[in-house]
């Protein structure tokens, strides 16, 4: 029985060591090292390549950093202070609020299935597990703080590069110490869900709303109080002796935060924690597959979120082929985050239209490829996922071409919801013929759905061929814009006509991809 503190610590160390080993293997695989391959020469070769690459990059990075330092030291001290005083405290204030808020949706206690089996019957004190993880996160925050403090160190008053190191270390330590109590508040609220006598959902939500309200109120008041912690961190980082009490305050609060987490950890139910950690465990179980199949990862996360929530609404009434649109509607209604993503894509697309310059061919091709690679699959996510469920798909007897057209409607509308307000609000800035590119939204949606169709109706893997085809389709629209005059209506109409033509081509190729060349030459199967 591991009832002593040392024994408990040993248990946690055991669990974490396994997870660290897994994480290292994960990143090793990400960089092509394949730790389980058993080929030492291969691993050594990879390490050699990375060492050489880092060695070649380091002088460049140091040179860039030096250039930045020189620039920073040239700025007048008053201006530097002013710049830091207005930006950093605000960033730290926002980050503090996020640290309170983010644990609500995170898998705070990351447990693998193996950990669950090991820990569940274990008698050790749960507080150790919680405190250990809390300290890890605090240290991680300090590590993240390393980058901004490295970049800004001379702005704190260190003229010589050699003097920036104390600034960096003071800065990241102070930052981690300040964020510790903030994180503790988030953890204390979030850990209520893991308690043996867990709070009811209503109380939990009321707590969240109260905290969100308090955060909004603080921001609305523009309170100096909110910026004060950031200013203190800045003063400590720059070695200001007038804030001698700063370290005591920060260490005291951090200790208080740790104590609060320790206290809450007492009532932790590992059963509840294991339930909440199940998604992480499932992802961890995938191992290398999460690199190969990102869709699988997304579907696990989406499924977990869906299972945790109540199903809202029901399938809208529709018949025949329109049932596909109804299915897409209920998906976006229940997973509204995905719908919001598409609207955000529309906003970005609209902003891109304002800046668009067809005279720059390299940039145009770059934009086209990015849209085809990133946006098109996002628009066809539901369709592609559904194709991967042959049991239900077998009931859908409609021709593949009709399916693509109907399924493409809702994602296109969601993106247009984002595009149109931007164009209306900034109408004077819309470039010549810009409206002719709006139909590209439809082409992208159809292309994404077309690309998902594989032989026999199963989802197809993406290929360079289809990416080139999609980019070419968008470039046809760009070419059209460069040909029409300044008349926005003419641009829009010709763009729509070309989009229709491109849709027809994509549907024809989709039929070939699914059924082969002979089938495409025949009439649609439903009419035979």
């Amino acid at each position, binding site marked *: 029985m591991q009832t002593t503190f040392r024994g408990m610590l040993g248990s946690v160390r055991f669990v974490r060591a396994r997870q660290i080993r897994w994480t290292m293997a994960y990143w090793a695989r990400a960089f092509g090292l394949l730790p389980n391959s058993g080929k030492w020469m291969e691993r050594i070769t990879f390490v050699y390549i990375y060492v050489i690459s880092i060695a070649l990059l380091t002088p460049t990075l140091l040179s860039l950093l030096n250039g930045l330092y020189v620039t920073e030291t040239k700025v007048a001290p008053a201006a530097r202070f002013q710049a830091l005083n207005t930006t950093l405290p605000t960033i730290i204030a926002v980050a503090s609020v996020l640290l309170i808020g983010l644990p609500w949706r995170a898998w705070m206690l990351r447990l693998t299935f193996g950990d669950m089996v090991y820990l569940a019957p274990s008698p050790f004190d749960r507080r150790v597990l919680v405190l250990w993880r809390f300290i890890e996160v605090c240290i991680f925050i300090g590590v993240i703080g390393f980058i901004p403090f490295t970049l800004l160190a001379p702005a704190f008053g260190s003229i010589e590069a050699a003097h920036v190191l104390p600034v960096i270390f003071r800065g990241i330590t102070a930052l981690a110490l300040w964020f510790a109590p903030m994180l503790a508040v988030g953890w204390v609220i979030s850990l209520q869900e893991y308690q043996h006598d867990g709070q009811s959902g209503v109380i939990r939500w009321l707590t969240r709303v109260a905290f969100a309200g308090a955060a909004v109120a603080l921001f609305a008041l523009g309170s100096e109080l909110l910026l004060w912690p950031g200013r203190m961190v800045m003063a400590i980082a720059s070695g200001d002796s007038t804030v001698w009490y700063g370290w005591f305050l920060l260490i005291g609060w951090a200790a208080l935060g740790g104590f609060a987490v320790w206290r809450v950890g007492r009532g932790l139910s590992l059963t509840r924690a294991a339930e909440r950690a199940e998604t992480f465990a499932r992802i961890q179980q995938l191992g290398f597959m999460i690199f190969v199949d990102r869709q699988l990862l997304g579907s696990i996360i*989406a499924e977990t979120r*869906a*299972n945790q929530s109540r199903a809202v609404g029901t399938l809208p009434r529709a018949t*025949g082929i329109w049932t596909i649109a109804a299915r897409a509607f209920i*998906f976006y209604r229940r997973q509204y985050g995905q719908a919001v993503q598409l609207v955000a894509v529309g906003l970005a697309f609209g902003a891109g239209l304002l800046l668009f310059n067809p005279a720059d061919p390299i940039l145009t091709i770059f934009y086209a490829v990015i849209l085809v690679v990133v946006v098109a699959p996002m628009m066809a996510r539901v369709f592609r996922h559904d194709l991967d469920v042959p*049991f*239900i798909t*077998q*009931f859908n007897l409609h021709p593949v071409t009709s399916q693509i057209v109907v399924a493409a409607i809702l994602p296109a509308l969601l993106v247009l919801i984002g595009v149109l307000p931007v164009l209306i609000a900034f109408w004077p800035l819309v470039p010549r013929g810009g409206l002719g590119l709006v139909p590209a939204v439809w082409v992208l949606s159809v292309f994404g759905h077309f690309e998902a169709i594989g032989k*026999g109706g199963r989802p197809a893997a993406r290929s360079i061929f289809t990416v080139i085809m999609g980019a070419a389709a968008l470039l046809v629209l760009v070419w059209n814009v460069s040909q029409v005059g300044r008349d926005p209506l003419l641009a829009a109409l010709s763009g729509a006509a070309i989009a229709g033509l491109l849709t027809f081509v994509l549907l024809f190729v989709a039929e070939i991809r699914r059924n082969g060349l002979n089938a495409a030459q025949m009439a649609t199967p439903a009419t035979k």
Partner: protein
Amino acid sequence: MSKKPRQNAPTALINSTEPTVSNPPQFPDSNRDTVLYARGVRKSYGAVEVLHGVDFRLQAGERVALIGPNGAGKSTLLQCLSGWQTMDEGEVQVCGSDLTREEQKARAAMVLIPDTPNFYQSMTAWDHMLLVGRFHDLVDVEPAAEYLLDALGLWSVRKSYPSTYSRGMKYKLGLALGLLINPKVILLDEPTAALDPLSAQVLWRLLQEFQEEDNGAVLLSSHQVELDTEGIDRFFLLLNGNKIGDDTPAAWIARYGLSTGASVAGVFRAAIAEFTRLNPDIAH
């Protein structure tokens, strides 16, 4: 649960609690229509051929058990027959429609329920029932869907996502979806493997109704059936991707000289011995 009026519901099923005793096996019956016909079905995974030119025939109202040891190719055959997998060679016809050339017409008459059905994301069981019914333009989907979910014990969880279901519940939902559209042929892969005994009883009952009232045909692969399992007309034995035979229980017993009441395992043993003797090179 309050019982709502059920339109479309087979009334005999509501009052029936026990499976009815089946008629004596009838095969071949020239009066029945052939609803599923396969000839020379070949399928390979890479260099390994798993189906070696399998022939098969299923007639309306029949129930045939597809049996064979693990790895015999049963699931692959079901997937090829249903069009889920493309064949390398061969021909499959469903109610007279060629599965390759008239795919949608053929598939409209047939449903495959795999051993663990998957479902669409963010759709409840009820949504799935409505979706499938509307895909097929069925009128009065709701009463039929309600009846099937109730019969299979899923009514109370109809508003839950199938991803929260156990394997057995998923299979029952799959069966409800399959029966909802009233196909001509249902292919079932390991239907009873995940079901509790009561649910298995309901399954047999629903299949019986499907055969008797709708003249539907059933092909099921299972390790849980025996030669004396009620309602099964024929046993189709697959071994190493080869069709060994397609006979009534009595014919199997007679073929291998087994005692009355012999088990499926006994048929396997005799068939493997015969196959090894006749094909010494490929038997290994």
